[in-house]
């Protein structure tokens, strides 16, 4: 048989080309429907050797040409869902039609279990001793030697080429994304085992719902505890400067700690590190309205509108510590503690011009302010992360023991101000996720208590007419105490349905506040109760929010429809003043986007929203806010309604790298109150509110375009903004129309000259103008030019040159400022040490003068800057 086959093969081969036959036909089902995508092969009889093949088309047709000398051939028809047909036929051109019988095709399901990457739920253990080499120092060095693990130069760890999603030490996640801190500082001799947890889903309740293909690493320690850390030390002149950052850490099986001590007087405001917030946190904070708020103030010096490192005269100490402790039953306890101490000094003068309907008043003040900050913050978090639920509860305390002193030279008089602006807050925030049917429900609950005891003392006494029957007096003091209770609770989930996604949320807010205030004078002559407030305030809100998203084709739509019920109650018992407000509000917001073509997209949105006043917008008796501002707001609660529209056009063409956008927005605010600002002869102001509906209109135009020109490796950006605000204000008992206009033009050129050299040039021109009753006041202009050069001579070296030129138009003259800085950084790779030299403010520019527009005044300020300074910094591991 075999011999015959070989013979047949041989003959077929040698005679090939002698005859060509074509077999064609139609494949149909038993119901006479065409069978498409069937494999039709022609083979030698009883073999797998394909002579030619075809795939049936949409009509079930096939056509195959063959060159073969065999007398008889075999036709095979295979199609998913049909019985295979095998038929032998004579080797001559002919039409062969077939009816295919439906049949379940049983496909062998095969999975190779041992596929190296598809393994699931496994834990792999690596013994550190087996992989460590002599020159290795840290656990990062040893990880590099382990198969499947890579450590990138920035410290990121990859497992099987994919970044790990968690870095645990003894199963605890203290550092979250900053694991490099531990990884590159932890000596490998402290570690016994490295575990790889494959397919690790960090939020366990989502484990069954959301698949993860990433791995996590768990470090097993040898000893019960390990101590390590990192340090950065810098010093410079002049005056004597320091910049220190020490970060020790401790790890053990049950508890872990990472601390940091930072101190400097170089103008680096490390306090901003305490404010690490996600967007969600910021939105919640806006609702709660419980950030520290100062009711009283010393007269401020307006700070310059550029990098605070140029002007901040500080002396800061910051201690933070993060401590994590593992409890039973999957609970974790985390304590974050921070203490901040800062002493800042501000020196300069301001020249204020107040406009009134028929006059302008000039005020010249020389200021020296000293600001003392003392903040303690603690946050105790309990977290449970299991398959059944996720729970996170944070108990937080904040204490501000702040005080300020201000000395003002006003013409020939001296004014001294002493402020104690303290604030205390205790709050609890609970967040939990739990499944209900197929949904995962999110529950949020917040409770907060806060206290604002503040006082301001001014020497000599001010507002003689009001406070002391027109006679001069020695001292005036304002005392204030505000106590607040606030709670917000909500329940929500998200559900998808066809092109819609719907997220309903239901919640209740409640706030209770009590304000006590009192003005005391050294003469004690005016002890009537018109200088005391004793206000009780309560506010509640019940809300239901339905958020709907819709996506189809080129349309995107989002509609939010919050329904709110507000209740306000205010009462000052001694004054027998009371007001009540109930409002039902519907605040829809709609946004629509549509793709016009490949490159053009248009969008628009419309919204209606309501705002109500807060306790610092209604009080019946006078409060001395600063030495020249005393006010009472004996008025109904402010109610504002905003109607906003916006429209935008976008063009994005990535092929020629041209981008363009144009945005217009318009907001109309209807306000139920007008404020009457009375400017007294001594420059003091008095504010009262009058119930009268009024409107504030604002328009905003902005456009931006950019183009990348590849022939010169340059990116060009141009942008322009225009804004106009129209509103009314009462100035010295006259209702006045005010219009503020702002223009801003910006041009920017970025050029990559080579791989190791790039340049950036930016110019900004700004113009502001203020119009009162149709009369133009002086224009204010600012020109700003920036030129930066970044130079990377080698991988481990960086030189940066930064220059800035600012020209401001002042009330009577123009002022130019020039700044230049140089930075050089060198990394000693072997020891992982960074060196950095900085020379800031090379031209030793001493002060900075600007002008700004207020609703009814121009303010020219002069701020003393930091002098030229040289700094040297080193960063290394402990």
């Amino acid at each position: 048989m075999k011999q015959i086959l070989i013979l047949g093969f041989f003959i077929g081969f040698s005679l090939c080309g002698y005859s060509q036959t074509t077999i064609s036909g139609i494949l149909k089902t038993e119901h006479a429907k065409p069978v498409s995508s069937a494999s039709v092969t022609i083979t030698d009889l009883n073999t797998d050797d394909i002579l030619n093949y075809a795939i049936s088309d949409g009509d079930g047709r096939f056509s195959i040409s063959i060159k073969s000398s065999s007398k008889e051939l075999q036709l095979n028809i295979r199609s998913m869902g049909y019985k295979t047909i095998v038929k032998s036929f004579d080797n001559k051109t002919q039409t062969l039609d077939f009816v295919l019988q439906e049949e379940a095709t049983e496909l062998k399901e095969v999975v190779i279990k041992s596929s190296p990457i598809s393994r699931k739920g496994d834990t792999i253990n690596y013994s550190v001793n087996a992989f460590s080499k002599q020159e290795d120092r840290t656990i990062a060095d040893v990880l590099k030697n382990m198969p499947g693990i890579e450590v990138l130069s920035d410290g990121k760890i990859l497992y099987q080429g994919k970044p790990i999603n968690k870095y645990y030490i003894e199963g605890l996640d203290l550092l979250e994304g900053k694991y490099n801190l531990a990884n590159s500082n932890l000596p490998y001799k402290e570690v016994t085992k490295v575990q790889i947890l494959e397919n690790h889903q960090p939020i366990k309740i989502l484990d069954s719902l959301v698949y993860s293909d990433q791995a996590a690493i768990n470090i097993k320690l040898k000893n019960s505890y390990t101590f390590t850390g990192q340090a950065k030390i810098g010093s410079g002149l002049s005056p004597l400067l320091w910049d220190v950052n020490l970060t020790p850490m401790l790890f053990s099986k049950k508890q872990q700690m990472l601390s940091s001590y930072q101190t400097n007087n170089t103008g680096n405001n490390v306090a901003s590190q305490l404010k690490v917030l996600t967007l969600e946190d910021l939105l919640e904070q806006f609702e709660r309205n419980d950030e520290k708020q100062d009711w009283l103030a010393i007269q401020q010096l307006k700070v310059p509108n550029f990098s605070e490192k140029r002007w901040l005269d500080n002396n800061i100490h910051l201690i933070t510590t993060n401590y994590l402790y593992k409890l039973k039953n999957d609970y974790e306890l985390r304590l974050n503690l921070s203490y901040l101490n800062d002493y800042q000094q501000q020196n300069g003068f301001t020249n204020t011009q107040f406009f009134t309907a028929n006059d302008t008043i000039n005020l010249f003040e020389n200021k020296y302010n000293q600001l003392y900050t003392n903040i303690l913050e603690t946050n105790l978090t309990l977290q449970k992360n299991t398959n059944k639920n996720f729970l996170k509860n944070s108990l937080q305390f904040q204490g501000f023991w702040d005080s300020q002193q201000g000395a003002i030279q006003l013409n020939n008089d001296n004014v001294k101000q002493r402020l104690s602006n303290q604030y205390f807050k205790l709050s609890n925030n609970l967040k939990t996720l739990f499944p209900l049917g197929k949904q995962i429900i999110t529950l949020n609950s917040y409770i907060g208590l806060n206290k604002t005891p503040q006082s301001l003392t001014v020497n000599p006494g001010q507002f003689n007419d009001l406070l002391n029957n027109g006679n001069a007096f020695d001292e005036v003091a304002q005392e204030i105490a505000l106590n607040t209770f606030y709670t917000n609770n909500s329940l929500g989930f998200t559900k998808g349905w066809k092109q819609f996604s719907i997220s309903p949320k239901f919640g209740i807010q409640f706030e209770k506040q009590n304000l006590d205030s009192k003005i005391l004078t050294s003469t004690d002559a005016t002890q009537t109760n018109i200088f005391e407030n004793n206000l009780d305030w309560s506010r509640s809100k019940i809300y239901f929010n339905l958020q709907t998203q819709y996506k189809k084709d080129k349309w995107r739509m989002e509609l939010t429809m919050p329904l709110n019920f507000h209740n306000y109650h205010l009462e000052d018992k001694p004054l027998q003043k009371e007001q009540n407000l109930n409002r039902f509000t519907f605040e829809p917001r709609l946004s629509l986007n549509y793709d016009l073509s490949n490159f053009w997209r248009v969008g628009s949105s419309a919204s209606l929203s309501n705002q109500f006043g807060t306790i610092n917008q209604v009080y019946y008796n006078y409060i001395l806010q600063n030495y020249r501002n005393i006010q009472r707001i004996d008025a109904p609660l402010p109610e504002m309604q905003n109607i906003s529209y916006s429209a935008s056009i976008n063009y994005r063409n990535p092929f020629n790298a041209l981008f363009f956008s144009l945005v217009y927005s318009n907001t109309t605010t209807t306000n139920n109150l007008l404020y009457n600002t009375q400017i007294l002869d001594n420059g003091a102001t008095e504010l009262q509110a009058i119930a009268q509906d009024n409107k504030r209109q604002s328009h905003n135009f902005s456009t931006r375009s950019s183009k990348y020109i590849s022939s010169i490796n340059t990116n060009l950006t141009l942008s322009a903004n225009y804004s106009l605000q129209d509103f009314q204000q009462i100035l010295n008992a006259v209702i006045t129309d005010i219009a503020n206009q702002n223009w801003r033009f910006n041009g920017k050129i970025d050029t990559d000259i080579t791989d190791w050299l790039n340049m950036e040039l930016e110019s900004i021109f700004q113009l502001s103008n203020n119009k009162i009753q149709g009369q133009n006041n002086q224009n204010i202009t600012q020109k700003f030019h920036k030129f930066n050069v970044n130079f990377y001579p080698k991988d481990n070296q960086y030189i940066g040159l930064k220059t800035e030129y600012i020209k401001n138009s002042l009330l009577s003259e123009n002022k130019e400022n020039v700044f230049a800085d140089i930075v050089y950084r060198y990394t000693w790779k072997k020891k992982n040490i960074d060196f950095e030299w900085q020379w800031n403010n090379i031209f030793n520019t001493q002060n900075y003068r600007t002008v700004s527009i207020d609703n009814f005044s121009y303010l020219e300020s002069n701020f003393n800057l930091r002098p030229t300074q040289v700094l040297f910094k080193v960063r290394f591991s402990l």
Partner: protein
Amino acid sequence: MKQYFINLLLFFLLIQFAYSQTNYRVKYELNFQIDSTNSKSIQNEIMYLDIKKSKYSYFRPESIFLKDSILQSNNPQSLFSINKPKFNYTIEKVFNNNNISSYYDYTAFKFKLSESIDFKWEIINGSTKTVLDYKVHKATTSFKGRNYTAWYTNEISIQDGPYKFKGLPGLILELYDEKNHYHFKAFSIQELSDNKPYIVSEEYKLISNKDFNDFKERVKQKPSLVLQNPGIQIPKEGMDKYDRNHRERNKHKNNPIELKVNNE
């Protein structure tokens, strides 16, 4: 008990019936050499070939599948738990004709390319082996500058395969080029209950091959171009860092699967 047994039998019969219309997922392990000058620069990625009712198929990296399915689910935050795909394409093949659509997702830019490819396969009779318990046969072809060997099984009469390859009288279970720079090998064939395509093709702009090549050339010059998104402004330092990192990475990315623009 008997009733139960009959029910079970009925159930299986139903399943069998449904089988003819079933969707399948073939998983391939792709090993590829990212740098043609460095034979150690082998990376891998799991690729899914989702075959829908014998009519059309989608071929894409597992991570793109995960990303797209997460984006359309109720838990977009879990996006952070998946890694970045090494390829950003999804290839759609319709079985009735030669049209192949490729969807490229650059996050801020989404492109669709359309081409018609008629693979000229040469069947090599006499060579067989076993892949995934299936007997496979050898065939060769050339495509855009590389010569390929494919191993297909006529036991599965779906004329599809990894990447853009199709048109053999059975499913391709293994495919590699002669330099072994791209090597696809199936490691799993499973029935697929979920048949959502997960690709919102309306989001993708149809562009020409030339435009697409221009775009890729520009992104090579200025990688931060792909970050150009209205409403998001990234500071100069961030853009610079992105450019530097990506230019460095691109130095070692010199070995695309399609070496030539046209199939000669």
